[in-house]
């Protein structure tokens, strides 16, 4: 069953058209990547879903058209967005950041056991549990951002360029943790990533964007098998 469906989505910042017809779909429990060069519209695609940019076209989540809804309404429907730049609350502690992630939940016990689960998934965060988020390293902040989104227990996780600014080895650790998160929670994911090799650690299929349009979709195996894709996004 399809969880999220984008149909000819458009978006603009002022007079600058950034998305010019993006279509893609994410199956329930599936993980889809969005690949593309800088400026192709990957981040804007996620932002159009979470309601942080004005959009046209159709965005259907779980049978309901969510286009034009405000970010907090989209969040309440079960979509958690890990924004580019991580969006940490720097003056809040690690624990407080995670509790904000769970803001809409009422099940106290579930929240505590999910925090336990995350600290097990990201042992680094355990050591920094009472520190302010601003004191964390880039990798730790990325883990915290993923953890914060997970705390909402969403049905769909939007993940924006989780490798940005991280050392390659750290980026791998983060992606492996995300893959484990997916296996153990079954949350569907839409993953924006410049580094396609990293994305394929998590996703089963991907859509390629070029200048604001989706030009190609396929399973991971199909895309990896194509020479042009390999050259453009997989480093030869």
């Amino acid at each position: 069953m399809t969880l999220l469906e984008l149909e000819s989505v458009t978006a603009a910042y002022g007079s600058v058209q950034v998305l010019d017809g993006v279509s893609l779909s994410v199956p329930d429990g599936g993980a889809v990547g969005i690949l593309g060069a800088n400026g192709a519209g990957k981040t804007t695609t996620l932002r159009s879903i979470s309601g942080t940019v004005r959009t046209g076209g159709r965005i259907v989540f779980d049978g309901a058209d969510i286009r034009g809804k405000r970010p907090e309404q989209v969040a309440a429907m079960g979509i958690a967005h890990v924004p580019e730049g991580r969006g940490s609350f720097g003056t809040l502690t690690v624990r407080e950041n995670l509790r904000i992630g769970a803001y809409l939940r009422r099940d106290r016990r579930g929240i505590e056991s999910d925090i336990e689960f995350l600290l097990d998934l990201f042992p680094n965060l355990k050591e920094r549990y009472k520190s302010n988020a601003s004191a964390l390293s880039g990798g730790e902040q990325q883990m915290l951002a993923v953890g914060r989104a997970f705390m909402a227990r969403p049905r769909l996780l939007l993940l924006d360029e989780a490798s940005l600014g991280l050392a390659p080895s750290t980026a791998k650790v983060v992606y492996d943790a995300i893959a484990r998160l997916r296996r153990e929670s079954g949350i569907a994911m839409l993953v924006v990533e410049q580094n396609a090799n990293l994305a394929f650690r998590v996703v089963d299929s991907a859509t390629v964007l070029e200048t604001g349009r989706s030009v190609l979709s396929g399973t991971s195996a199909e895309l990896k098998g194509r020479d042009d894709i390999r050259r453009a996004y997989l480093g030869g």
Partner: protein
Amino acid sequence: MGQFIQLFVDGLSNGSIYAVLALAIVLVNQATGLVNFAQGGMAVLSAYLTWWFAEHGIALILAILLSVVASFLLGGLVERFAMRRFEGGDPDTAVVVTIGLLTLVTGLCGIIWGYNYLTFPWFFSTGAAFTVGGITISWWSVMSVVVIVVIMGLLQALFAGTKLGLALRAVADNPQSAALSGLRVGRLLMVGWGLAAVLGAIAGTIIAPKLQMAPQMLDEVLIYALAAVVIGGLDSPLGAVIAAFAVSVIQNLVAVYVSFIGSDLKIIVPFVIVVIVLALRPQGLFGRKQVVRV
């Protein structure tokens, strides 16, 4: 020695005036990320509202409660209709808007109620005092210190221990991210401003009987309160209160014991302290240091 202790106690008494307003400034900063210069104006307006209710035959305690409720609503409305459009932009712009609001609100009070000093009714005479070991302490000071301690405790409990407090801090820290976690940013900012206005109302209402009530009554107090906030740390209620008391006590002592300063120049004392603190510890004595990493 007796004089020293008396000066010290008087300093604490004065300091409690600064401390109440300083607390209000810290609250707004925690809940909105801004330094709100309009805090003094909102406190004055609330004091006038209390006075006005009392003048119309409402019992003082009820008048205070009514004023607190009205201030909460006004604070929320100020956020919604004045501050909202400036929140996404440069914080400096928003701060300038609060300065404009300060002028506007005190001006409105002047137009409505005039600039003459009015007598504010109180439960007891603010001159009433008792003597312990030769030191005179006014009941008003005792009351204001108690009120401050209670408020401080409540604020600490709100921000450290409740979901609402946590949400207010998150919104002040990163509104975009807060919205992505499902927080209703606009509504929380209104609540933050409303709560700050409530603190302002309490501040204005307990200060008014001590000073004489006029639109400009808090102008000087606001300056000392801001100095205390800078010294104590913008994010620390306890720090701001301690700094408010310290500023006032030091000021009192310096005025008497340092002859070339005296009472004419004592206004510079807080600012000298501000400069020293900013040079040595820019986050304030009790503030948390901001570490920024990428």
